[in-house]
């Protein structure tokens, strides 16, 4: 039987160390909504989402109450819209109509974000995919809850440099249209290499074509819990350190597994995966950077950071993998800058640079995330940054991503405010030497030699 110390431990994790389930994300396939008539297709999309997800928020709230652990977000991911709209969209504005439909559906069912306004162009772009990408500045600006992702490369296909170049320009345009709001529309747009089909986290969630009709994916969180556990083993050996992280990650992931199973049963929708993640928020004590400091660094970004993060990421996976029957998504420690108070502090004081962040992305999930850079940064420079990150993902057979915010009208020394879970960020300096001639070459970078495993 459960004993009192175990009960106290669990409740402390929630009350004092910010343990929560970050998101229940309902993936919905829209492939059966495809229609050659734009209006009809939009109508089918709206109906499918609002029918499938009608109980999502209520179910989430119910589970939250029963087990006493907050489920912060309820979200939806859908089949990449570039596929759904391919047969009925003749111009970028047609794709914008889908963004509105997704936004309306999200509002009706009460989810705070909906992902899947996406295009998968890792090898080449269809006309539809190019139109969707070109519709992004307008689509993201006119909607509140729609998130977009573009997969630009993979280990199997190489990197589509034409799309990388285009995305550099598009990110600048997205920033420009929302310049009155600290270019905040860029928060809803992420580019990937090796994008997973079952990621529950925004902005990159979409429901891959390999998935079932509908599926429940859950993303857990708990940097505060890991940090607190590590406080008790200060000065101990790496063995003790790693064991502590593993045990904590196991407990955190068990919560996700329970929530995923319950949600799946109650909604009659199959359980997909649990994403074993340490996802920070700007709340004090909910920071991945603080864990790195607890491991022994003065600030995130100090020498040793990459090694500490590699260790952390690996132990989180080792502990979490046994706690869940299916693991997937991004799984690992997230290192967004604006959403993590410890990262913000490190960036402000100059301990953390873009280059160090890039190194860190080699050993953890995701990539350059929620980083504000000067608004004057050239589109080709942004493309260069993206290409570097995609190359890391491609060569290391892992997911990498870039969610970067060129804050129009702001420069190093300024700050951007996104509010809520998205936090705030100091503008970080960017290497300004040109990569124009590299980015302006046409075509794609071939897949690396170790991708030929057949």
């Amino acid at each position, binding site marked *: *039987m*459960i*004993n*009192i*110390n*175990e*009960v*106290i*431990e*669990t*409740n402390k994790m929630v009350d004092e160390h910010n343990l929560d389930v970050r998101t229940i994300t309902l993936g919905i396939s829209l492939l059966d909504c495809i229609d050659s008539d734009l209006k009809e297709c939009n109508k089918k999309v709206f109906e499918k989402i609002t029918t499938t997800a009608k109980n999502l928020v209520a179910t989430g709230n119910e589970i939250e*109450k*029963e*087990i*006493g*652990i907050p489920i912060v977000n309820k979200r939806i991911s859908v089949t990449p819209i570039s596929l759904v709209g391919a047969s009925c969209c003749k111009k970028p504005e047609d794709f914008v109509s889908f963004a509105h439909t997704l936004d309306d559906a999200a509002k009706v069912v009460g989810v705070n974000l909906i992902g899947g306004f996406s295009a998968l162009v890792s090898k080449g772009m269809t006309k539809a995919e190019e139109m969707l990408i070109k519709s992004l500045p307008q689509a993201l600006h006119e909607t509140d809850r729609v998130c977009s992702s573009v997969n630009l490369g993979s280990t199997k296909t190489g990197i589509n440099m034409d799309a990388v170049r285009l995305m550099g320009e598009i990110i600048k345009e997205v920033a420009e249209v929302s310049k009155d709001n600290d270019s905040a529309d860029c928060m809803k747009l992420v580019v990937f290499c090796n994008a997973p089909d079952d990621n529950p986290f925004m902005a990159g969630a979409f429901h891959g074509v390999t998935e079932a009709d509908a599926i429940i994916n859950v993303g857990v969180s708990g940097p505060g819990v890991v940090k607190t556990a590590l406080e008790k083993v200060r000065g101990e050996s790496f063995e003790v350190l790693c064991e502590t992280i593993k045990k904590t990650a196991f*407990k955190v992931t*068990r*919560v996700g*597994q*329970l929530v995923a199973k*319950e949600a799946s049963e109650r909604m009659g929708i199959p359980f997909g995966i649990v994403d074993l993640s340490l996802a920070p928020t700007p709340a004090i004590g909910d920071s991945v950077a603080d864990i790195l400091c607890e491991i022994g660094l003065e600030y995130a970004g100090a020498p040793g950071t990459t090694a500490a993060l590699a260790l952390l990421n690996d132990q989180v996976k080792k502990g979490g993998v046994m706690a869940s029957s299916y693991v997937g998504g991004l799984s690992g420690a997230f290192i967004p800058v604006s959403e993590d108070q410890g990262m913000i502090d490190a960036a402000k004081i100059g301990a953390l640079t873009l280059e160090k962040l890039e190194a860190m992305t080699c050993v953890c999930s995701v990539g350059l995330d929620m980083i504000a850079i000067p608004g004057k940064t050239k589109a080709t420079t942004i493309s260069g940054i993206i290409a570097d990150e995609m190359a890391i993902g491609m060569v290391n057979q892992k997911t990498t991503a870039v969610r970067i915010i060129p804050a129009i009208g702001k420069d190093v020394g300024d700050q951007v405010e996104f509010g809520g879970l998205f936090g705030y960020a100091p503008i970080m300096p960017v290497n300004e030497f040109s990569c124009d001639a590299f980015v302006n070459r046409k075509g794609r970078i071939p897949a690396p030699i170790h991708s030929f495993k057949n």
Partner: protein
Amino acid sequence: MEQDKIIITVVGKDTVGILAKVCTYLANNKINILDISQTIVQGIFNMMMIADNTNSEKEFDQCQKELDQIGEELGVQVKCQKEAIFEMMHRI
């Protein structure tokens, strides 16, 4: 959830009659207490009960609200959760 067991926790400053009030409420609502333990952690009173609400006519969330109310009257925090979360986290 399959299990009908619930975990009731009381956390706060120790005062006279906490146990009596909570137990009376449970008895009135046909919730059977299976186990009680208590401890003081850093000067704070912690009590935990494992109970069975199979025969209770009251909905779980209604019990939660009413126990929360009792806690407020006593100046302590009373929580009511399904046992599944603790089983899941602490048992393989």
